């Protein structure tokens, strides 16, 4: 940049610095545009002149390092390659060892090198944000990170979970001695993920920020820093993960819920055995995720009537469940609305004005320095609170429906002869392959 005479700079408004030689033209265009815009601070005067140094001292110009990011193409290419390779490894090679190897690669690159951002789990929020129309831009990389694992799931099952997701990979590697959590408990805890998804979506729609990123327990490890609580939560999840394999994926992950739904309809999902099942029951012990449905050869086929009755009862009860849940969500609005920073700020300001709390906080101090009046803040908070009634009700409906769907699924009796895979719950971890005697020995 050419140096201008010191006192010709008479605009104190914010101007872009030259970022990169190649981008200088672009920057110039942006600056030109800025000048065309209605002047924000153009009336401000440049009020400082440097001292007249009698020596030939030259001031040290500000040095700002270049703005550069890892090229997004690299991320996308690696994501696609890892997804494809995992699908091949799970479906064709049927190799647990390869799945683990790929997990290490994903953990190293997406986890430790890229420091956990951007990840598909969080991208869900960016996509929603773009739909809600908050003005946030959805870049192509993020859109691709959201889409590719879902499309892969539509054809190959949850290969993304198997060894591409850095969060999953970290837990998979820790799960050295997995046990089976009793099915009812597992199913009940699994509903938490639906709640998390619902709340995260509500968080975006109501402009409360990115809750999934906020409460990501592993990102702190990738970045070697973070809040104490989140690091502790991550540590606990990983340690218990030695036995309860992948607690985050099963009981929390909101993106996992989407993958679960889609994976049910997957085209080429992995099968336990490549050939004829010999009913050896060995695989029953193998799956830590309760994703293997055992055959029930002994059970006598239920009468049509009994089945119809049960279905009828469920159908009768489900609107009630949904309605109840909606009611609970509606009445939970005072709690839910506290997710929004404006509501929290308004509550705090009100408490301070009323003298209920002795001191001020950083937020209330900043608020008082700003332009907004307390009255308009309260009005804003009240309007938000009212909106949270509807948001809470919608959340309740969603959770009610999820519970009913789960009940329907559990009530449908299966009469499979063989051990089959629950495509929704299966994470394609490839453990069961090792237990199947029909399996061809793994190639070295």
């Amino acid at each position, binding site marked *: 940049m050419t140096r201008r*005479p*010191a*006192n*010709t700079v008479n605009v*104190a408004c914010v101007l872009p610095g030259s970022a990169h030689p190649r981008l200088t033209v672009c920057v110039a265009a942006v600056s030109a545009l800025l000048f065309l815009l209605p002047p924000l*601070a153009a009336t*401000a*005067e440049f*009020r*400082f*002149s440097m*001292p*007249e140094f*009698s020596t030939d001292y030259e001031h040290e110009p500000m040095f700002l390092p270049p703005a550069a990011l890892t090229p997004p193409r690299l991320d996308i290419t690696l994501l696609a390659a890892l997804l494809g390779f995992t699908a091949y490894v799970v479906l064709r090679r049927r190799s647990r060892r390869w799945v683990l190897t790929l997990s290490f690669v994903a953990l190293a690159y997406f986890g430790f090198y890229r420091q956990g951002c951007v990840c598909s789990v969080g991208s869900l929020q960016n996509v929603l944000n773009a739909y809600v129309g908050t003005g946030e831009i959805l870049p192509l990389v993020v859109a691709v990170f959201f889409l590719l694992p879902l499309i892969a799931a539509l054809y190959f099952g949850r290969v993304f979970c198997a060894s591409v997701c850095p969060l999953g990979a970290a837990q998979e590697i820790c799960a050295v001695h997995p*046990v*089976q*959590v*009793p099915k009812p*408990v*597992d199913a009940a*805890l699994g509903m*938490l993920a639906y709640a998390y998804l619902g709340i995260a979506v509500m968080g975006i729609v109501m402009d409360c920020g990115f809750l999934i990123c906020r*409460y990501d*327990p592993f990102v702190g490890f990738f970045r070697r820093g973070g*809040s*104490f*609580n*989140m690091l*502790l*939560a991550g540590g*606990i*999840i990983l340690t*218990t993960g030695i*036995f*309860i394999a992948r*607690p985050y994926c099963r*009981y*929390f992950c909101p993106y996992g819920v989407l993958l679960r739904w889609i994976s049910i309809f997957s085209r080429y999902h992995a099968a336990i055995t490549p050939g004829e099942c010999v009913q050896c029951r060995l695989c029953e012990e193998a799956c830590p995720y309760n994703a293997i449905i055992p055959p029930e050869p002994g059970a006598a086929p239920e009468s049509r009537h009994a089945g119809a009755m049960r279905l009828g009862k469920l159908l009768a009860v489900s609107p009630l469940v949904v309605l109840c849940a909606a009611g609970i969500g509606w009445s939970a609005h005072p709690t839910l609305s506290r997710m929004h920073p404006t509501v929290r700020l308004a509550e705090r300001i009100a408490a301070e004005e009323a003298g209920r709390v002795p001191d001020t906080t*950083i937020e209330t101090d900043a608020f008082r*320095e*700003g*332009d907004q009046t307390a009255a308009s803040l309260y009005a804003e908070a009240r309007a938000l609170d009212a909106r949270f009634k509807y948001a809470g009700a919608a959340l309740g409906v969603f959770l009610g429906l999820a519970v009913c769907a789960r009940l329907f699924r559990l009530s449908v009796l299966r009469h499979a002869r063989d051990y089959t895979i629950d495509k929704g719950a299966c994470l394609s971890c490839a453990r069961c392959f090792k237990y199947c005697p029909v399996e061809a020995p793994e190639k070295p």
Partner: protein
Amino acid sequence: MVPDWVWAALAIAVVSVALALFVTDSPERPGDALVYDVSEYEAVDAEDIRYRETLRVALELENPAALAVDNNGHILIAGEGALLVLDEAGGELARREIEGRPYCAAVAPDGVIYLGMRDHVAACSPEGDVLAAWDMLNERAWLTSIVADENHVFVADSGNARVYVYDHSGTRHTVIGERDPEQGLHGFVVPSHYFEVALDTTGALWATNPGKLGLEKYREDGALLGAWHQPGFDIDKFPGCCNPVHIAFKSDGALVAAEKGINRVKVFAADRSFEGVVAAPELLNAGWKTADFPDDMTPVRDIAVDGNDRVLVLHGPLRSLLIFEHINK
């Protein structure tokens, strides 16, 4: 063999603990070591406040910047495009349109009004007609203060950190503040556009040296007669890196000084002992927000003392003239 319920309990436990940790997670707040706080120095003892605001006059003026009192006791306030003349009670006597934006103003004993524009002085008749526009100064110039006695007009130029001594015809005789490090002459250290001159009751010229946090006394020929530098954050000192920002003298020789950073107006007796506070930060900071006035480092645009020894404070953000009187105990 471990029974199943143990694993069920473990799964429930890990989920509950994680949820509890999520919910109770609140980011670490910066400790006192990381936060800049001068509130203890902003507090003023009630007994230190020796003045009372007796009058507040709202001004119909864009960018009010300069305050002066003429021989009749009338108050002159100059702002962008206009010059207001008020009587002692704040009543408007006259409003004169002027061109440009003055930053400082003075009235000579003969009634001529001198307005300091950014880079030149304009001399006006008491009726507001421009008599003469003096020579333009260089590009760096930014006139921030002006005073006049029978023979001279003293002009402070913050951009060049110089005080110019003119005669009434606009001829420049002396430049005060030339630097000569070999002779130990620092000149003025003026980091921002706050640089003031004032005449005390004996007619001597005082100029602020903001970078030195004090005042210096000069002869018309530029000779330094004395200096009074008071760096420090205590109430009887000048805080920060550039204070005081405005000065004026009372008839008994007491010094009235306005500061920025900690926005207040104080009085020092003729012997320069601390006498008291005219306007505490609480009073000056009320009713406006810094965010709306990004260019103002202090709400006080100028101060003056009138013939009755009242302290006049020109409050920029409130666009008001605040008049303070001494509390007689």
